[in-house]
């Protein structure tokens, strides 16, 4: 009896392992961010629009926000630009841009040509802030809750689909019980 059960059991185990592997295959290249569930990293950047009036993590408190790391040198950022403009039009969250290792004049030209989806853009010339955010390939976007905690990260181009199916439900799920739990937080 064990003569059959043992190989059968081993085979079943192998099948389970392979199925789990196949199901996770699409996320194979996505490295989960250790920042999720933690406070957004502190930062202070120059403002792209005027060169001063610092852009900092203080902007991320009291409301939901989307932090988007981009650069004019990044083709995928061009691809997601329309989706960002759409999110801006929908008006649920301000988008804070971190312009990663970019030239200010090129970034300004990009925004005036393609439209500006950002409420504020900070310029990360030496790339230190991007490293603190664990960014390894632009574009990357972080959904931040009103407590300033990172809730979700999108690696690669933001799309209307990701925004509506992954990000918005997180915002809605939290804002509903928030009225009762408000005193606790």
């Amino acid at each position, binding site marked *: 009896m064990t003569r059959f059960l043992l190989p059968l059991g081993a085979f079943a185990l192998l099948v389970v392992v392979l199925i789990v592997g196949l199901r996770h295959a699409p996320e194979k290249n996505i490295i*989960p961010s250790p*920042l999720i569930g933690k406070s957004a990293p502190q930062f202070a950047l120059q403002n792209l629009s005027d060169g001063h009036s610092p852009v900092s993590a203080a902007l991320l408190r009291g409301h939901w926000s989307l932090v988007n790391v981009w650069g004019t040198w990044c083709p995928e950022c061009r691809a997601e630009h329309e989706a960002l403009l759409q999110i801006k039009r929908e008006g649920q969250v301000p988008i804070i841009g971190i312009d990663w290792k970019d030239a200010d004049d090129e970034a300004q030209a990009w925004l005036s040509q393609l439209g500006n989806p950002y409420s504020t853009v900070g310029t990360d010339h030496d*790339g*230190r802030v991007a*490293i*603190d955010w664990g960014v390894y*390939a632009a574009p990357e976007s972080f959904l931040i809750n009103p407590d300033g905690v990172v809730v979700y990260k999108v690696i690669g181009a933001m799309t209307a689909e990701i925004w509506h199916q992954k990000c918005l439900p997180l915002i809605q799920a939290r804002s509903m019980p928030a009225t009762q739990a408000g005193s606790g937080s």
Partner: protein
Amino acid sequence: MRGVRLAYALLGMSTLLAALPAMAVDNVPPLPTPQLQQRYYQLTHELRCMQCQNEALADSPVGLAADLRLQVRELLIAGQTDEQIRQHMVDRYSEFILFRPRMNWRNAWLWGAPGVLMLVGVVVAWRVIRSRSQLVDSEEADPNAESLNS
């Protein structure tokens, strides 16, 4: 005459080839002490370049790797331990950045698997050997076995 020229050309080429390893990606000035330089060398070889994921920081030509090497250098000079520097990177980029993963409860089964497999092998081998030895005994006891084999 031609032979001599050829020999010179070959010598020149091989000298250039021998110098190739010196054309490293990381060509910043060395750290102030040999000890720091040694630790810098080790750390940049055991941290992964997140952008081109199968290369070490030390070998990767991308901008992000250069920025991360700079951070390693600054943290070393600031007096942080190797473990603190590793943790600094893990806090930002997850354990994926370590080429040598740490043991934790999630991967403990992987670390334990060779031992478990070994144990299973020993048990199986022991049972097979025992049943075979019983087989030989019973064959010898059976007078018909001899005639069947021949």
